[in-house]
């Protein structure tokens, strides 16, 4: 395999004239050390109200549902109501995220809250989004003990808690925030960008939900007054 590696690199290097080597290295270093934004579409740009408005419109356009709460403490009751309205068992699975753990779960007494990664039998999950992107109605989930990746994919209903202040205009702001937290060039194991519930168009180009992932995606935006 090492031979394969050196032969591949030799062929790439011998391909045509690539110009001055020092300049090539410098160009690559500069680009990687100081990542630049390319053209960022205008669609999501604007104040918080605008970003929320675009996020909601885009998320609903792809089959997700959105609810806006003023008070974080209303989340448990809202989750319970959502499950009831969609005829699901009063149970959710969430990760160890402190923000979720600290919610007043006693306010939704009939609700069973389990912690940990998703299991096949789980019918609904609750995750805490790292960010929302207005541009395409996309939530950004980071893997880890707080929000295990399986919660995004295995249960039939995926409920996402998203703070209004975390809704950015574009993906680019998410990258900047990630670099600030994880350090340059570092990533969590998985970053999931999710825009709506799972779907397929593979049979006669007819859109069917769900395919393999959640049937329903419900985003609760908390917008504090």
């Amino acid at each position: 395999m090492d031979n394969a590696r050196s032969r591949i690199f030799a062929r790439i290097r011998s391909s045509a004239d690539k110009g001055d080597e020092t300049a090539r290295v410098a160009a690559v270093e500069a680009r990687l050390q100081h990542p630049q934004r390319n053209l960022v579409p205008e669609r999501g740009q604007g104040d918080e109200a605008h970003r929320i408005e675009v996020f909601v419109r885009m998320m609903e356009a792809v089959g997700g549902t959105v609810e806006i709460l003023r008070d974080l403490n209303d989340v448990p009751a809202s989750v319970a109501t959502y499950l009831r309205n969609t005829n699901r068992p009063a149970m959710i699975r969430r990760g160890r995220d402190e923000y979720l753990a600290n919610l007043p779960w006693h306010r939704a007494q009939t609700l069973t809250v389990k912690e940990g990664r998703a299991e096949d039998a789980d019918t609904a999950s609750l995750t805490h989004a790292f960010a929302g992107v207005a541009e395409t109605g996309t939530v950004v989930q980071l893997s880890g003990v707080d929000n295990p990746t399986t919660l995004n994919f295995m249960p039939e209903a995926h409920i996402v808690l998203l703070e209004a202040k975390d809704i950015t205009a574009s993906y680019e702001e998410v990258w900047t925030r990630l670099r600030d937290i994880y350090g340059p060039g570092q990533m969590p194991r998985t970053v999931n960008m999710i825009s709506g519930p799972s779907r397929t168009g593979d049979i006669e180009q007819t859109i069917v939900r769900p395919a393999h992932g959640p049937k329903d995606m419900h985003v609760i935006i908390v917008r504090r007054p």
Partner: protein
Amino acid sequence: MEAKTAEFTSNVARAIADSQLQGTMTETGPRFIEKRAKARAGLPEFDALRDQARDIKDHVLAHLDLYLERYEAKVVESGGHVHWAETAEEARAAILGICRKLDAKLATKGKSMISEEIGLNQALEAAGVTPVETDLGEYLIQLRNEPPSHIIAPAVHLTRDQIEADFRKAHTHLDPNRDLTEIPTLVEEARTVLRQKYLDADVGITGANFLIAETGTSIIVTNEGNGDLTQTLPKAHIVIASIEKIVPTLEDATTILRVLARSATGQDFSNYTTFSTGPRRPEDPDGPGEYHVVILDNGRSNVLGTEFQDMLRCIRCGACLNHCPVYQAVGGHAYGWVYPGPIGSVVTPALIGIEKAKHLPNASTFCGRCEEVCPMRIPLPRLLRHWREKEFEKHLTPGAVRTGLGVWAYFAKRPKLYQFGTRVAARLLSVMSGKKGRLASLPLAQGWTRYRDMPAPQGKTFQAMWKERRHG
């Protein structure tokens, strides 16, 4: 995968005679076109983003060695393994090696054209590892033991009746009297069957839409969520990708992602865009214990620095297929190898040799729609012309065709395929008008004159016109 490119002419004849295929293509083709047009109209910056996407990839190709080195270092730093493969055989060997080490019996698979290119499923089976495709379209064609007929919609050629029959044959553990007439029921059944496979799998194999040099990250894009279940649940995640999938930074990946889904399915963004870096971390409650990337060359590095280099910008969105009258007339299987349509006719000769694929560059009307819609601004007609020049130099083409008009000349010489010509003309009109079937019944000559600045008396048949041109 074994190449059947040499049989292109007989493949075409079969495709034209296949009324079921013709029905499906007429039905689905225009939908792709409408969806893309709508998505493009919804983003004023779309064409400017295409320019930037092209520039990003050109920059990468000029610095590919350096970016690959950086990418490799970052993967290793995050705890992953990189395997280099010069050929399809080496790539298969690398994957089988990982499977053996893990004593794998079952491999779930996300959609990957590279996997098709290297014939991975057959190799896995031969080694005692059962491959299960999890993308619904890929699963459907795996049941039929067929290659994909489209880059992003592998089962676009199938009808629900065919799928129902396949499910009854394959899922024998289910009630034989169940109702499978509706599409959602079929999807539901596949979901249930495949959910168990995800849970049982030892390894998960996915492709990659991009590899990011800055972070050592691989990206997959799906709508179904199948790729995520494939790569998250088993012991190991194996990524198979080719050398040109590299992009420098997260921002660069983002720019190209903005044009990818819009060009492919007409979505603003795919449902699931997933960035994976290394194996699961010590504190992670889920994710694969091992992360491997197999990087395949398979002839691509030979294309660098040649007049064909632009093909390496391709992001496999499928837009050129959807807008190609030839593809729409014959479907993907006629092309005889993994990559159909205009991009297939350009890539296939580079990967398996022009001798074996000499017919493909003729499968074009040079109508230019492919280049017009390509998000990476790949000059497909020019590249096809380059191949025909090569072919000419090597004297692979019969004389009369050399001076001719591509597919028109080619098939006019084969009267049995006259049907093909009319079918292409009809599709050309429908591709151009963007309206489903509106012009499909116009006589061929009219179509020809409308879009080719060529004076031809009304009502003449294509064959008559062709005769005139040859002698006149």
